[in-house]
């Protein structure tokens, strides 16, 4: 169980990292999705792996139940990660629309910190 979980996190994390380093926005978005899966599993695993343990209920001895905190944390992390990925998708689409190019380094006019003065105004 532990080996399987560790392996899944590792494979997801490695694939995610590789995709994030790609030059086009679509693989980068996919990469962040995989990376957030890996991170969420990692957060979840921080509570310790217990098979079949109940959630926090009063009838169960504290040692027998699953750690509730990482579950709460991972919920928050999933929501936030989902929102951020959605924002990145919209940003990538807008960039594609504005520059006609889905490269992460799409060079719009005014590259290198030199904007056109009318845009700065």
């Amino acid at each position, binding site marked *: 169980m532990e080996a399987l979980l560790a392996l899944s996190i590792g494979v997801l994390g490695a694939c995610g990292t590789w995709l*994030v380093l790609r030059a086009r*926005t679509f693989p*980068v978005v996919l990469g*962040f999705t995989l*990376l*957030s899966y*890996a*991170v*969420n599993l*990692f*957060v979840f*695993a*921080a*509570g*310790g792996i217990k098979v079949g343990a109940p959630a*926090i209920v*009063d009838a169960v001895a*504290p040692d027998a139940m699953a750690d509730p*905190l*990482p579950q709460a*944390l991972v919920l*928050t*992390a999933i929501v*936030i*990660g989902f*929102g*951020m*990925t959605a*924002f*990145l998708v919209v*940003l*990538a689409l*807008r*960039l594609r629309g*504005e*520059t006609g190019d889905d490269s*992460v*380094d*799409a*060079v*719009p*006019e*005014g590259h290198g*910190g*030199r*904007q056109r*003065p*009318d*845009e*700065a*105004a």
Partner: protein
Amino acid sequence: MTAHLVAAPFLLPAITACALIVAGHRLAWQRALSIASTALLLVVAVALLVAVDDGTPRVLAFGAWPAFVGIVFVADRLSALMLVMAAGVGLAAVVHASRGADARGAHFHALVQFQLAGIDGAFLTGDLFNLFVCFELLLIASYALLQHGGGAARLKAGVHYVALNLVGSALFLIAVSVIYRIAGTLNMADLAQALARTPETDVPWLRAGALLLLVVFLLKAAAAPMHLWLAGTYTAACAPVAAIFAVLTKVGAYAVLRVGAIVFGTSPAAVAIDAVVLPLALATVVVAAIGALAAARLSVMAAWLALGSSGTWLAGVGLFHGAGTGGALFYVLPSTAAIAGLFLLADAMAQARGEVGDTICGAPRMHGAGRFGALYLVLAITIAGLPPLAGFLGKTLLLQGAGPDHGVLWAVLLGASLLNVIALARAGSRLFWAADHETPCPGLAAAARWRALAPAAALAVAIVALTPGAGALQRYARLAAEHVVAPSAYLDAVLPIGGGRSPVGEVLSLRETR
């Protein structure tokens, strides 16, 4: 009463933001509500600043849960100073934006309020996970604010900024999980106790978690070698947004101080953190000084100077030492205000100079060049750290506090100050003295009125006022830093809440009695 005041700097902008979304698109109402709320935020922050000066941090435990299972907000002197800084800069930015910049996109004021809520939450929170949540709140607001005004340059900067910070968030969660696995808690005060007794076998894990967390904070603080995103992002943002962003990098260094001193200060990871922060901060200061020399536009120069100010503050944090860090804390207030002011001034100048914008070159003489020049002089003196204004006093206190053992720090900070003086003097003489026509463009007189300069001028007045008030501020900043580096008052205030640390069983019984 003051216990509930602790949540106000977070709740006030959060509620205002929701109200602004509901209130509809009448810009006049939005402006009035946003300015009033930010002004009230400044009042609340100052009230908190006065209230916590008795040395006991105010703690608010939501739902009165024990500190180590619940959510706590803690306001001490350090938090209060940072809150005042954020509210002051926020107010100037909101007022400046209300002259028309806020009309270039939807929901500007709501986003600014969310941004302020995130910043204030990060300054107040007493546990690592809510620090993550507040960071995400301020980041998502900053992603959207960066896009305010639209355009391809902003989109491109936005993709880079968002991608970098998503990686940062992933690392943050991994670090938090590792630390939770070791200590079984995420409350900062509780962690301080738990991590001080880390078993020998867990020390490598602890070090890994601590340094991962440090990477995240240094990314937000734009410390070298993770500084490359800053200049592009800050330059792409419109001026009032860039002014608020000047506070954002300070949040990263604040987190290094808060977490580095309180959570890891007595743990086996402290040595590793001490070894990293100061050298990277000094490298940042050097890079920023060179970048400012190379800038071709005033707003680009302001972005590099923001990096330098953040690096100097981080260097003071890296000392983890009462007097030195206190000096940096004194420095960070006028310096952040001056950089925010410089962004606003650059924007006003770009409008008053017409088609050349804020490019550092000769142009037809501006209307009201005198008032622009005087304002530039005050801000430049503060940023470069020249006497007699507060920027100079801050740098002096920082160097004095560091003492003769830190020769490299002295050399780097003084050298960087020299480079900043050269950059600012060169830019100033080009902008104000190299006029190629004596007659200004008649169409631009309206853009050069005092009213366009009022927010930047207000920041300059605040900086000047800090100079006679330097004694009081120095005492305050020094005490703030001392109480973070030796956090016994902080621990005493937080730990006993709800009866202190107890085994899980006792928490359950406590839950039953509620």
